[in-house]
Structure formats: structure tokens, C-alpha cells
């Protein structure tokens, strides 16, 4: 498996990142190096190993369905780069989800 320029473009777009052509070339090299390194794992037989989703052996951590005070609106909006009286404000969204 090797990463191409197209893959880098695709992943960059999904991550909302933009790179210069030079940076993209560097990333192609770096991503391929990382994948090659991971290839070493293929030396192991994992056919009898369950996929690991969590590194800690914990399960069923719940909270009761109770209300606790959160932040006031003023506090919530305080760090927003742009706001109106009651809302967060972002540049007009044109595309759909």
C-alpha cells in the first residue's frame, strides 16, 4: 500500500487543511514512511486476536440522568471569535453537511 498525491489531497480536504505543493510532496514521503513502519506488524499472526477498541480494561462507566448547572450563555460565548447577542456567529455556510 502506498500513499499517492491524490490520497494526500483527499485527506487534507477532509481535515480542512491546505498545503503547498512542496508540503504535499513531503507528506507523501512521510505518510508512506509511517505506513511502511506499520507494515512490520504484518509479521505477527493476529488471526486469533480481537480488534482492540480501547487500551484500558474498563466498561460500563455511566452517570445518572441528572441535571447539573453548565455555563451561562455569557461564559459560553466569551471565547467566540464572533458572536451576536445570543448566538455563535460563523461565516455563511453555503455547502450542506
Amino acid at each position, binding site marked *: 500500500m502506498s500513499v499517492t498525491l491524490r490520497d494526500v489531497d*483527499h485527506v487534507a480536504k477532509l481535515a480542512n487543511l491546505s498545503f503547498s505543493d512542496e508540503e504535499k510532496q513531503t507528506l507523501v514521503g512521510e505518510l508512506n514512511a509511517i505506513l511502511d513502519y506499520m507494515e512490520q506488524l504484518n509479521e505477527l499472526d493476529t488471526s486469533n486476536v480481537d480488534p482492540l477498541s*480501547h487500551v484500558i480494561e474498563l466498561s460500563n*462507566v455511566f452517570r445518572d440522568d441528572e441535571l447539573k448547572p453548565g455555563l451561562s450563555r455569557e461564559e459560553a460565548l466569551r471565547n467566540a471569535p*464572533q458572536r451576536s447577542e445570543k*448566538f455563535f456567529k*460563523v461565516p455563511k455556510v*453555503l455547502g450542506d453537511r
Partner: protein
Amino acid sequence: MKLNDAYEPVIGLEVHAQLLTASKAFCSCSTQFGVEPNSNVCPVCLGMPGTLPVLNRNLVEFIIRMGLATGCSITPRSVFARKNYFYPDLPKGYQISQFDLPLCTGGSVEIDLDDGSRKTIRLTRIHMEEDAGKSIHDIDVDTLVDVNRCGVPLIEIVSEPDMRSPREAYLFLTRIRQLVTYLGICDGNMEEGSLRADANISVRRKGTTPFGTKTEVKNMNSFRYVERALEFEINRQIQVLTEGGTVAQETLLWDANLGVAIPMRSKEEAHDYRYFPDPDLVPVLVEEAWTGRIRESMPELPTVRRDRFESTLGLPRYDADVLTAEKETADYFEDTLQELTNQTGRDRKDLAKPVSNWVMTDILRVMGERKLAIGQVPISPVRLAGMIRLILDGTISGTIAKELFEEMLGSDEDPESIVERKGLVQVSDHGVLSAAIQEVLDNSPDQVRKYINGSDKVFGFFVGQTMKKLQGKGNPSVINELLRKKLDGLKSA
């Protein structure tokens, strides 16, 4: 709109139900609808760095209820996943959902088709996820974001592509709504967005097996629109095919004002969500003991209740369907029936139909006219039972009962005391009734002659006139009996 008979639609639905928990899925903020923007928020649902989500136990309880009600397998070890996409109303940049290990799989619901037959619609899965916030595009030049709904718990119910008409999709959705409201896990309000449906639609030539290319239609935010939106999209696809074209796989948004489904501007990457297990949330293990406890606490399911109304109470299928459509109506009916059984000591089976008649016609009529929920109707089950008892024991006539019913809507007075105060007691005294009848006959010599000459039709006229003279308070069966005796006496004389 008429669907082309040569083609058959294939429809699958994804239904999102907003759960009736007090707090959000992963934080202790309120889920209350319609409050001031950005007032139910905290660092967790605002997606602040360094915060950790903690799962609301009731979310798991609620989805298990739905899973058991639809015969799903409950996954012993279930995992949350991150669904990654950028949108301003999703502060974290991902939605917490489930991917390859949803909590419920399989299962099915039954729908009652209009021809009286039943059809099974299979479910693929039911999983847990969190809602996104709300973006408002039309009150400012910029987009405004309200985070209140972020993190409100949802279950997504995914059906198999088993529906073959918009009507079936509507019936499926109605059944899902009935189930979630019976289970008390969702208020089922589509207009307020508590229940949302997206559809996957394709069409194929009748008699062929392979599915056509499917499209997804979103934003069908009322029961009324679901059938219309599906019909629109099915017709559009059929038209494309009959003109020799091919259906493009795309997502469309239903526009209720224009009555059309409009393709979303979609980028090719749009569906690359890069799901992966959420490391912040530990797996959910559900053991048999837990599901067993939940199963025991479940209310009677609507279809089971409907069948019981038919089989053990002897109600017609139509009555059983109408009464069990909403849990509150069925509860009201059963409370009234229980109360009437207690008051009269008679067999429930004999009382069920009279109670059903009053609930289905008069109570439901009042609810419709005054836009009330059944709990808001001013006549409680105890008072309605009291009124029906007065009819059954002959204290009042059916005609008077209608008058009494209207009277009861305006006050919380006992039916008995209204009857006493207004002098509505039915007159069964033979002397009084005979006198009234005699007066009617004396005043209607023409009609009497007709009766003697063999016209039985005028009999009703005499009953009506006598009842009128008694202001509706005469006992109809005694009047009938006395009148018949008197007229037949004249005939043979």
C-alpha cells in the same frame, strides 16, 4: 400523484428519535426544547479541549426498551464511534455515534396494510448517537449557531429496504411513533423534530429482483410530507428511467413549500466519515440480567394491547385500533372501564362497548375540536364512568346523556348531582308516560288514522312527539311498549 404501474419502488427508512432523558447523552445539561439559545451548554457539549464525555445510563435503558419491543438482538459488547465531519453546529468536529458494534441488531415491526393484511418490516439495527446543534442561516448575513441541541440523545432506527409504497413507509413510521411513545422514550412529535425520517429510495421494473440505484431523501419533517416526498422522488426516478436515463446516487432535501426534492450540493468526499472507536467512551456491556430487568418493567405493547381489546374485551377490530393508537387513549379507556366495572359490578365484557363508543365518538371529538390531549379533556374517567352508569341503570336516557356530557365539559360537578340539579332523571312512570302518549295521540288524528290503516312508519313520529313533550326525559323503551299497546288497542277496536 399516480405511480407508474410498470415500476416498483423499494424504500428503506432511517428514523431518528430524540430520547426523553432529562439530561444530555454525555453531559449533565438539560435537553429541554425551546429555551433561550445557547443556555443549555457546558464545556463537554461545547466541545472544549480536555473535556470527557460520560454516558447517561438512561440512554442505554431507553434503547434497550426499543430493541426488546422490536425483537432485536442486544449486542453484549457495544462500542461508540466517532463520525467525523466539519459543520459549524458540531463543535467537536465529530458526532459520537455507533458504527460496527451498534447496541441492537435485527428485529422487525409489523404494519397493518389497508387491505387488512399484516406485513413485517425488518430492522437492520438501532444505535445510539448524539444530536448536533442548530445552524440558522436566514436571520443574519452570517450563520448563527445554537448549541443547545448538541449532545441530546438520539436513537437511529434503520430499516431494511422492505417497503414497497409510500403508504407502507407512512405506516411503518406511524408504528415506530406508536412504539416509542408507548415505551415513554420519545414524545414522537415530528413537527418539533423529536422524530425525523430519512428515506433510501430506488425503483425497479416489476418482477425483477436487483435493486436500482438509490437516492436518499432528507428533511421530511412531518407525517404528511413523508408520503408526498416519497411519491415525488419515485415519480422522478421512474421518469428518468423511462426517458432512457440513469438515476444518479445522490442526497436530496425535501422542500415542503415547493413540493419538490432538491439535490444537495454534495462533494464526493461527503460520505467519507472516517469512523473509528471513540477512545473517550468505554464499551457498554449488557448482560442478560439487565435486559431481563428492563423487559419486566416494559409496558404492554400497542399491538398486544389491541389484540387483547379484541379477544378478551370483545371489541371490534376497528375500536381496538382506534383506542390503542395512542397509549393515553388506551389508558383513558381502560381507566373508565375499570371504574365502571367497580361502580356497577357487571362483567367488563358487557361494559367495554358502551365505554368504547363514548371514548371514540365524544371524547375524541372534544379532543379534536378543542385541540386537547386526552389528559386535558375536562371529563375524567371517573366522571365518564359515572355518566355511563346512569345510562345503564336507566336513570337517564341516551338523549339526555348527550346533554349531560356537554354540561360536564363545563364544570367538574358529579354527573349525579347535575342530573339531580337540572331534573334530568328519566321518566319511567307508566302513569306520566301514558298521559303524555294520550295527549300526543289526541293531537294527531291524521297520523293515528294512517297507523290504523297499516302504516308502521308513523310509529316513530309518535315516539318523537312523546319524547318532545317530556323534554327528552322519557324512558324510550317504556314509551315504545306503552305506545305500541295503546295503538294496537285502537287498531283492533
